[in-house]
Structures are given as C-alpha cells and as structure tokens.
C-alpha cells in the first residue's frame, strides 16, 4: 500500500442530536486507493461518521478536508459534487424509473427544460454496467431488481459521477455469498483505479478479506486506526467492547422449569422454513443470525402479526392457534418489537397511555377506563423500571430512546406474560441504560418467565442466554448451549452456506 497525501482529513468531528453526543472528536485520515473498514458496536458512531462525510448529517463541530482543501459538505448533493457517494444497505432508488434514469438522475446541472438524451443515456448506462461486469437491462424499471443489482446500480452511479470516495454502509448484509464475492471483486477493482472505499461492516471475516486498514469506534469515539494485519480478532473485539463483558452483563441464576413455548416445523414460504425449538420457564434463549435471516419473521409469526402457513405452536403444552396478536396476549405472550418508532410507541400519546396499551381489560373492566387504576399502574411501572420523565402525561415522544424502550417493556410486563419475546431490545440505547436492561431481563427469567431474545450483538447473546439458536436464510442452523457458545460458532452458523440452498 502506498502512502500518499490523504484524500480525506477529519479533525475533531463531533455530532450531537438533541443534546446527546453521539460522535466525539473524531480524527481520521483516509488514503487514496485504500479500502478502509469502520468497525464498532451498534451505536458506536461509525454510521454517524459516514453520514457526516456523505453530507447526510452536518457535524456539530470539527473540520473535514478533501484533497487538502477544507470543505463544508452541507448536503448529499454537495457530497456528490465533491466526489463522495454513500451507498445505503437498501439502496434508495426510484422504483418507477428505469435503471438508466436511476443512474443519471441528479447529475449535471442543465436547465429544467433541457432535453433528456435517452439514446445517449442508455448507451452510457449499458457501458457502465458492462464495466462493472453485471448484466442488467438498463431500460427496465428499478422495481423488481434484486437488492444486489440495485447496489450495483448505486455503485455505477457513484462511478458515473466520478466519485473518489465511496462509502458502503453494511452492503453485504442482504447479499448472498455469491453476490458478496462479486461485490468484493468490484470493490477491489475500484481500489485499483485509485478510489477510496469506506466499508462499514460487523463481519470480521469480511473486513479481514477485503480491507486494508480499520478504524474502530466505541461509544462515539474513535479508539484505534491500524492496518488490518496488525490486529487479531480478539484485539478488535476488545477494542470494540472496551471492557470485559462480564463487567456489565451477568446471567442470573434462574431455575429452569417446564417447556413454556414449543415451536414445531413453523414455515412461512419466502420468509422461514421448518423452524422448531423450545423455550422453558426461567430460560433465556437467544436467537442470533444476520439481519434478514428471518428471526423477526419467526417472532411475528409466533405473535400472530403475520401467522405462519404451516407448523404448530404449543404454549404450556397446549397446541394453540394464534391468528392475531391479541390471541397471543391472551395466552400470556408478549413481544417487544425491533423498531420502536414504527411498531412500538404511540408518539404523540402520553406515556401513561403507552404503558397501558396492552391491558385494556385491566384499566377498563367494563369498557370504561378507570383513570385511577390506569394512573396507579403507570406510576408503578415508571418506578419499577426507573423510567425518567417529567410526568406520565407527557407525550412519549419527548422521552429519550432508552426510556421509550423501558415504557414499551413496561407495557408488556403489565400484561404479566409467561413468555416474552424481545427483538433487539437494546438497539439505539445508551450504554448505561443497556446495563439496566440486562439486569431486568435476568430478573424476568428469575421470576420464571420464558424469554426469547433476538439480538445481533453477539456479546449480548453470549452473556445473557442459556442457549443460542442461530438462523440463516430462514432456517435454524444451530442450537448452541451456553457452555459451548463462542462468537465464532455463532457466526459460522449465521453465515449462509452456498450449499444450504442446494441441500434443501
């Protein structure tokens, strides 16, 4: 690797959202012609940093220089003009426009009524796709293209606009191994052309296979930048986590009892196939795997949000048919969903209303709401879970993310569930609150509840769970007892194998 003048120079880059600092004084140099990985736990700041470089966010403080010239990247458009392109995991495109149009839209600054040079545009688009070595009919609409192909179009667009710096935010998560190989080939070729690539991933093996240098983020700060060969996996994990796991995660000693939830041959075509497992009382069962492996779909199927087409469910030994979430609730199930804003909170409604949403029968015994009961239950939850707020009548949107999540958990605890499904319960939450959550989860298990914990954070799974189930491409690929669980084992089971498709 040649040491040349840095392409990008970041100095003291800091970003705060609504008073919460998410990125603190980051200095970083990127060289021309390197593939640079950004690593870190969820919320460590790597994506925020990438978005600042790409003009999606503006830094609260700090400076960026490109090719030695200080720049103010005020919007993605400015970034593009400066030769910086961010490629999202699920590319943002115009489904109704053709591939060729998606490639050129936003380029050049001609007049409003200037002609669209269709023939030229199509020819150029074909050339670019050929260059990338992919065969896509550029006259067809984007709608219907695979995600891999959409990424290729995005990369093509970056090249067409002459980008010198291409940022890829977890590009491989939705791809098949074969597609990943193709992508890597192209990325290496881009490096060969002297372009710089920022590669964000949480898959160490990919980073090792592809990248030249890595920068590791933790809690909003940069903790290290080094050539990949100078760091071994353990060192990287240590840097990412920063302190021994045990320090803030401990498995409570709950006595494990009867089978509470039994899933047998659950199948929803296109989402997951033949999933079978059990969760016992007092047991925390982890469900790991990559994003898109079908974990959330399984949870949604169990909870009746989108029921499975075949397979059976047993709750406390009895076969049940759950068609709707309220069937599930009646059977003592609870589900804390992954995306709080979309499927958890009622943003403009009061904290109180949010907390009591799942127990209509208790707050309104004869259909009429008893304010006193409601107030009591809400206040009780706030105290127990230490939810920080000014008033239970506040709209929940005014609370911090962690406290919103606690309120959602409180909602489900009020339903007194025997079986609790938690989907990424600690995503986007401050590290301090995270620890509280781990305690709470442990306590819940001690109380004899069965817990199914879906998480992408391996340390979380390893530290909390009695058993870890792993899914890949809609199938259960491993069941690892706590004693045998290691990051490597989980990852091995999570990465889809090419033959998996054939074996089916």
């Amino acid at each position, binding site marked *: 690797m040649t040491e040349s003048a840095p392409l990008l120079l970041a100095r003291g880059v800091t970003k705060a959202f609504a*008073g*919460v600092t998410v990125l603190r004084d980051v200095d970083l140099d990127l060289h021309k012609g390197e593939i640079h990985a950004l690593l870190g736990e969820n919320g460590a700041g790597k994506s925020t940093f990438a978005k600042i470089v790409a003009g999606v966010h503006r830094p609260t403080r700090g400076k960026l220089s490109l090719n030695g010239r200080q720049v103010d990247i005020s919007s993605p458009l400015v970034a593009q003009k400066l030769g910086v392109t961010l490629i999202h995991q699920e590319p943002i495109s115009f489904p109704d426009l053709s591939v060729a149009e998606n490639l050129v839209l936003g380029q050049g600054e001609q007049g409003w009524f200037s002609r669209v040079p269709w023939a030229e545009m199509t020819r150029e688009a074909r050339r670019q796709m050929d260059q990338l070595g992919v065969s896509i009919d550029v006259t067809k609409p984007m709608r219907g293209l695979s995600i891999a192909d959409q990424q290729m179009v995005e990369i093509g667009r970056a090249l067409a606009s002459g980008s010198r710096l291409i940022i890829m935010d977890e590009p491989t998560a939705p791809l098949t191994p074969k597609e990943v190989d193709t992508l890597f080939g192209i990325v290496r070729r881009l490096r060969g052309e002297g372009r710089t690539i920022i590669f964000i991933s949480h898959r160490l093996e990919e980073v090792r296979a592809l990248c030249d240098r890595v920068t590791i983020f933790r809690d909003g700060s940069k903790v290290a930048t080094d050539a990949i060969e100078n760091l071994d996996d353990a060192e990287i994990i240590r840097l990412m986590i920063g302190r021994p796991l045990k320090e803030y995660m401990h498995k409570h000693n709950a006595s494990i009892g009867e089978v509470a939830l039994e899933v047998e041959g659950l199948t929803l075509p296109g989402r997951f196939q033949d999933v079978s497992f059990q969760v016992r009382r007092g047991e925390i069962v982890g469900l790991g795997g990559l994003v898109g492996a079908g974990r959330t779909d399984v949870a949604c199927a169990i*909870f009746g*949000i989108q029921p499975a087409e075949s397979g059976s469910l047993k709750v406390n030994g009895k076969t049940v048919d759950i068609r*709707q*979430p*309220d069937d*599930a*609730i009646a059977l003592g199930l609870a*589900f804390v*969903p992954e995306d709080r804003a*979309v*499927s*958890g*909170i*009622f*943003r*403009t*409604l009061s904290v109180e*209303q949010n907390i009591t*949403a*799942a127990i*209509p029968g208790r*707050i*309104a015994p004869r*259909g*009429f*709401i008893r304010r006193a009961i409601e107030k009591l239950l809400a206040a009780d939850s706030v105290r127990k879970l230490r939810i*920080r*707020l*000014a*008033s239970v*009548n*506040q*709209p929940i*949107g*005014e*609370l*911090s993310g*962690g*406290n919103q999540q606690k309120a959602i958990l409180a*909602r489900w605890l009020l339903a007194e569930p025997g079986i609790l499904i938690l989907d990424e319960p600690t995503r986007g939450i*401050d590290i*301090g609150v995270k620890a509280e959550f781990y305690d709470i989860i442990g306590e819940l298990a001690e109380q004899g509840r069965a817990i199914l914990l879906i998480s992408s954070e391996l340390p979380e799974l390893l530290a909390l769970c009695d058993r870890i189930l792993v899914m890949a491409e809609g199938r259960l690929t491993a069941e690892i007892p706590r004693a045998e669980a290691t990051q490597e084992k989980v990852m091995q089971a999570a990465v889809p194998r090419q033959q998996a498709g054939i074996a089916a």
Partner: protein
Amino acid sequence: MQEVTPARPLWHVILVRPETMTFVLLIAAVVVASQLSPYFLDISYILRSFTLSAEFAIVALVLTMVIIAGEIDLSPAANMALSACLFAWAQASGIPMPVAIGIGLLAGLAMGALNAFMVIALQLPSIIVTIGTLTLFRGLAQIIAGDKSIRVPDWFIGIDKILVFGIPMPVVIFVLAAFVLGLILAGTIFGRQIYQVGTNEVAARYAGIRTRRIKLVLFLLMGLVAAVAGMMTASRLGSVRYDLGLGGELQMVLMAMLGGTYIFGGRGTILGTFLAAWLLVVVSTGMTVANLLPAIQLTVLGVLLIVAIIATNFIYSRTQR
C-alpha cells in the same frame, strides 16, 4: 447525561389546544354576526337554523372518530341521499313503514360495509375510495329516484317541529349524540384504541389492538348514522330527492377540521367538532340573515377550511413533538 424534557404547565395543556381556537372563533363569530344584522341574536332563530345543519353535524361527530382513526369518509352525504331515497321509494311502493325504515338503515350499513371492504380488506386509500363511492351512491340515488321528489307520509314529517323544552328535536339528538360519542371517545377503551390506531396503526397492531375491527366498526357506524341522518332530513323536508344533502361532505369535513381534528389522524375531540358545528352555523346563518351574497359564504368556508388546518397543524406542532 439524560435530559428529561419538562412537562408543559397545566394552563398550557388546558388552553393551548385547537378547541380553544374554535371556542374563541365561535364567540367572535357571534359578536360579528350580531353586528352584521340586528335580527341574528335570537336563541330560537339560531336553534332553528342549527336544525338545518343538524343532520350533517351528527354525521360529522362520527366522521371525527373516523379521521382520528387515520381514515376519512367523504361519502356520507351521498349515503344519506341513497338510503333516504331507498327508504322513501320503499314506503311509496307500499312496503310497510317499519320495513321501509329497516331497508334504509340496512342500505346505510351496506354502504359503510362497502367502504370498509375497499379500505380495510383491499387496503385502498380511503380518500379516493370514498370519492368514488360518493359519486356512485349519489348516482344510484339518481337512478332510483330520477329527479322527482318522493313524498313521505304526513305523520313522518316534522321532526324539527318537535320541541323538547323549546329545543328542536334534531338539535337535541345532536347534543345527545355528541355526549354519547364524546363519552365513548374519551372514556372507553374503544375510544382510546381509536386514538392509538390513528397515531400508529402498526404499533397498535403489535399491542394486540384489533385495528381492522375498529375501523370496520367505525365505517359501519358511519354508514348507519348517515342513514339515520338521511331519514331525519326526509322527515324535516317531507320529501326525498336524489340531491338530498348535496355537497354535505364539505360541511362535515369542515366541522371536523375546524374543531381541531388532525387530518393525519390520532388527534381531535368530539368537543371540538361540537363547537365547530355551532361555529359553522353561526357563520353561515349570520351571513344569510345579513343578506350577504352566498358567494361570500363559499369563499368564507373555503378560507376557513384552509385556515383551520394551518392553525391546527401549528398548534399540534407546538404542543406535541
């Protein structure tokens, strides 16, 4: 490190809300109207005038609930016409009165069910669906009744002439309906869940709320209440024609919007719509009794609608982030 957003002071919660705006406008409208015409300020006249809009006002109460649940229904005025035409046509062709009333009410329910089916089962946007059904329902009424008016029997005529403590019956029904629906919306779990569905339908579903059932009930209620309103209109007019309640959807939407119902769902109250109904009646009655051009009334209604949404959005953006 964690900051807690302070709660709004109590006076702020109580006063800074769209209903306050509606109330202030109502007072202002009464003052302006009594300046415009010396004949305006007369309780019995205002009550009689309200009678003319009472049917729309009753439907607007249900519409408020539909909008809070995140949907909209523009078809109730056409529904009023079609169910009233069916009812009148049935009784005119010799079907016994109770059966004819049943036919009218069932027709209303069926129309509500059609809207519900297209919106809930087929997942089509309610605004376009109900523009379509609005055209369809009124068109069917026109096919059934042609453009002749169908008389209803004498004993059925004159609901507005029945006075309860000096208050015309339709106004009494409106006030009672407002009270009952207000109680349901604010005090029952069904009402609570309407707000939750309208605020975040996905989250509501995840919380075990049967969102489709709530919307189904609302659309059916809408159809039924529209049919009742259609028959009240028939009783007031003594006859039914296909153009009964023509253009009423605008007045209903206006009542809901002026009362601070948030067009995107999740916010609004029956009290707001209740006040807005009076506001609208005061405004149009004031202008009519002052012999102002109806053109000015159209203009004022259009401006009111736009101003009401802007103001409502502004108030909500200030009070609930």
